[in-house]
């Protein structure tokens, strides 16, 4: 079964700083990979996803992520964060490779705080 590690539990940045949040998963090969964002008091929203093709994926609000197969990683990046990016970010992968049930395994989340 799959597992997901988000090594940064809490990241604090000033506005305009660059962001990179780490996500590592446990099995290799091609997988579906997701980043979700949860703004304070809200539900999870899809930020971006990777299924196949170009390993550099662009999402909403200027976020992007790069799938690096050799490192089992799918790190989230943004060149210049804003105060409104303050939120919790979750990486997710399918529970079982090739499963059709759509179950996802979520990382424990990274809380991003951006100071104006």
């Amino acid at each position, binding site marked *: 079964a799959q597992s997901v590690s988000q090594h940064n539990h809490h990241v604090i940045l000033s506005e305009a700083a660059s962001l990179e949040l780490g996500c590592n998963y446990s099995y290799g090969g091609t997988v*579906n990979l*997701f980043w*979700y964002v949860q703004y304070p008091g*809200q*539900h*999870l*929203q*899809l930020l971006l*996803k990777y*299924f196949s093709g170009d390993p550099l994926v662009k999402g909403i609000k200027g976020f992007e992520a790069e799938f690096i197969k050799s490192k089992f990683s799918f790190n989230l990046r943004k060149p210049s964060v804003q105060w409104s990016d303050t939120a919790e970010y*979750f990486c*997710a992968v399918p529970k079982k490779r090739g499963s059709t*049930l*759509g*179950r*996802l395994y*979520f*990382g*424990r*989340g990274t809380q991003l705080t951006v100071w104006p």
Partner: protein
Amino acid sequence: DAGITQSPRHKVTETGTPVTLRCHQTENHRYMYWYRQDPGHGLRLIHYSYGVKDTDKGEVSDGYSVSRSKTEDFLLTLESATSSQTSVYFCATRGQETQYFGPGTRLLVL
């Protein structure tokens, strides 16, 4: 996002009482999921459904049951609520291999 609503949005109940949370979707998605979210644990799957009357357990299913009699509705029941079930509960559906989440239900068990 998919048209997902959850009810109630907030609930306070007492230990030992049964509680039912409802998830309603308008997208005709086959797969539906119930998660709980707790600080430091991220999201954990309670139960999921892969069709009407087809359900299965997730990682933290003890103390919970579900039912799905219609495509659009997925009910989560806490058979006898305990304080450890105080949490935020999210419903999700799956469309185009992507999960979409409802607004959540904040449950407090006293």
